């Protein structure tokens, strides 16, 4: 009789990468559902197109590069969905495709594929689209939710950041113009709760990041507490904090490092919002700290068992 042989351990936690990606996908669904409800069929088409082109781009790349095809791991699907949620419902179809392909091919695959990208693919793609076609990406492209103002699609409205017109409740529920995914804070929090319950992410990055945006808005932005709260709930802060800054690959690993990373994102967001001429604090805050992540991971020392005394001597 022959038996298999392997080195221990002989059992694993049932949680796999695929399962984790599925959890993130599920956590994004409330946000996506609200986006489609608020912005109509057009939003649904943007989401489907961004997911389909992301998965197809990954599939074709892996086929051409003769790599094992890993589209079943859900990571390209999640990237596509997150990118779609970062776009306005009015985004032209070609821009959606360019964004997805850029995210998957340039940001992810060219740097080695899953796990080796140093920027969050969806965030980097958003930055590229923003720089290339600002008209399609910023407030001029944002429409009010269809059910909320009678004006419907054709009417463009300013984001609350530039003209503080929405109430706190409208901000929270998502009755405001914006990208498909960022508007409803309630839906985002629902997804956050799901990610916490399933143990997919820890609370640290989202909580510390939004907290630091609030705090720095008070301290640096010189806002009143109410205005700071509005600022925190405006734009993509919460969506970025829950779904983009927490990307495993591009965020630090140890608790202390995560707190530092999230704090710095908050600081950069407020600095850009206060002193910059560009309203895109969240995108660049997260991207800049993505780049700093390997450094943070390397330089925040850890206590290793049996090494304490040496450290004290040195």
């Amino acid at each position, binding site marked *: 009789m022959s038996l298999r042989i392997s080195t*221990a351990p002989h059992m*694993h936690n049932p949680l796999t990468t695929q399962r984790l990606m599925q959890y993130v996908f599920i956590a994004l669904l409330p946000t996506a559902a609200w986006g489609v409800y608020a912005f109509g069929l057009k939003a649904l088409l943007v989401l489907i197109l961004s997911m389909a082109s992301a998965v197809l781009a990954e599939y074709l790349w892996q086929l051409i590069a003769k790599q094992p095809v890993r589209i079943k791991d859900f990571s390209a699907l999640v990237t596509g969905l997150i990118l779609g949620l970062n776009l306005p419902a009015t985004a032209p179809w070609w821009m959606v495709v360019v964004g997805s392909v850029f995210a998957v091919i340039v940001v992810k695959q060219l740097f080695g594929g899953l796990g080796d990208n140093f920027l969050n693919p969806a965030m980097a793609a958003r930055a590229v689209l923003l720089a290339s076609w600002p008209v399609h990406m910023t407030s001029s492209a944002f429409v009010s939710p269809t059910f909320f103002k009678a004006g419907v699609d054709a009417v463009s409205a300013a984001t609350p950041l530039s003209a503080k017109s929405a109430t706190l409740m409208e901000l929270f529920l998502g009755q405001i113009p914006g990208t498909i995914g960022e508007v409803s804070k309630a839906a985002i929090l629902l997804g956050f709760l799901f990610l916490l319950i399933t143990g997919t992410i820890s609370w640290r990055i989202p909580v510390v990041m939004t907290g630091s945006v609030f705090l720095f808005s008070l301290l640096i932005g010189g806002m009143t507490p109410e205005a700071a709260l509005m600022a925190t709930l405006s734009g993509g802060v919460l969506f970025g904090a829950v779904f983009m800054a927490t990307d495993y690959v591009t965020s630090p690993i140890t608790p202390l490092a995560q707190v530092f990373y999230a704090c710095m994102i908050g600081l950069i967001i407020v600095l850009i919002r206060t002193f910059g001429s560009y309203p895109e604090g969240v995108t660049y805050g997260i991207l800049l700290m993505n780049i700093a992540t390997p450094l943070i991971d390397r330089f925040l020392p850890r206590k290793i068992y049996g090494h304490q005394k040496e450290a004290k001597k040195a």
Partner: protein
Amino acid sequence: MLTKTFKRGIHPLHNMHEGKGQTRDLKTREYVSDTVVISMAMNIGAPAKPCVKKGDHVDIGQVIGEAQGFMSVPVHASVSGEVVAVDSIPSLGAGNVQAVTIKNDFADTWVELKPLGSVEKVDPSLVVPAIQAAGITGMGGASFPTHVKLTFQAGATCDTIIVNGAECETHLTADYRLMLENSTRIVDGLRAVMRALNVKKGVIGIEDNKPEAITAMINASKGREGVSIRPLKTKYPQGGEKQLIEAITGRQVPSGGLPIAAHVVVLNVGTCAAIADAIIDGKPLISRICTVTGCVRKPANLLLRIGTITEDVIGECGGYSETPGKVVFGGMMTGICIPNDQMPIFKSTNGIVVLNEQQSRSKDESPCIHCGRCVAACPIGLNPYQIKVAADKSDFAAAEKLHVMDCILCGSCAYQCPSRRWLTPSFKYCKDHITAEAKAKAAAAAAAKGGNK
């Protein structure tokens, strides 16, 4: 209940009803087979040398393999009968080892035993030699010769003997049953060692998912000088030597050092019971409790003679319940796969776990997604994902810089990894390579020195 523990760690099947549930309530029963194959290499250090030949008659407890030096223990016949072969069998590591095969005559005749009497009255200086003569090695799995552990180099001091009753491995209940069924012997063994080393404090650490064992040991230790029971949090690897020491004393063993550097000696509960048998009855180590579980029809806790063949043990447990994929000596987290079921059990075989085909399938690695679960699990505080990058490139210097030599190979990181990366196997590879390289370097240096003379 006030429990203590260490930092980080994991919870694989930590509820008693999972894994251990198959056997926890099964009383130990003895099983003796027709034939035993007794390996001469059951301890870390030099293997014993066979001192019987084919055709010899042996009694139980008779020395059949002589210790070769200080880092070695003798091997004893575990049944009475005729020696039918002295040959070599495959070892669990590399290459073959010598083994003595004895056909059991079921006469159960013992050699003449020389008991030393009560552990509270025995001459302390006789204890450690008696432990070596009885062939006792660490019975928790590591097989380190116990008398070596108890012999200190000049300047070393010990203030606490820790007895490991954590049994944090999955599936195994051998130590648990021993604590319930033979509590007094464990305390006797501990007392013998405390007296031999003139140590005033003895602590028995038990995970709090075994309250019955904690109660039994508390009762057995009543009125015994310096002995206390310490409930521990149920968490893997609570029974790891370094984690146990940290949980109980708050001290850490310095990197690269032995527990004695933290003024502690750690013994398994099974080892303690064997020590008591050696002192009180004069009996050498010829049998042990072994949990047989997983895909067998009738899981059991068996008192087995050393050298019992796995196939016979499985037969005693009703046979395989499914086609076996892997048969593991030890638990699921650190156990060793045996190549076939002709392998005999060793002094350290605390369990035989049979896995079915599906459980045995090797998992393909997928890319690391930097999720940090390995870092959150590592009881030592290493960054397993970084060491794996170095290991994949065979960059041993980088791995060493990342402290791979501090890795205890507990498997926690690999258990948690959602990408199923072969973390622990890679680290074992690194550690083996670095150790071998250091040895080769030392040998070369010694040779060069010799040449100069």
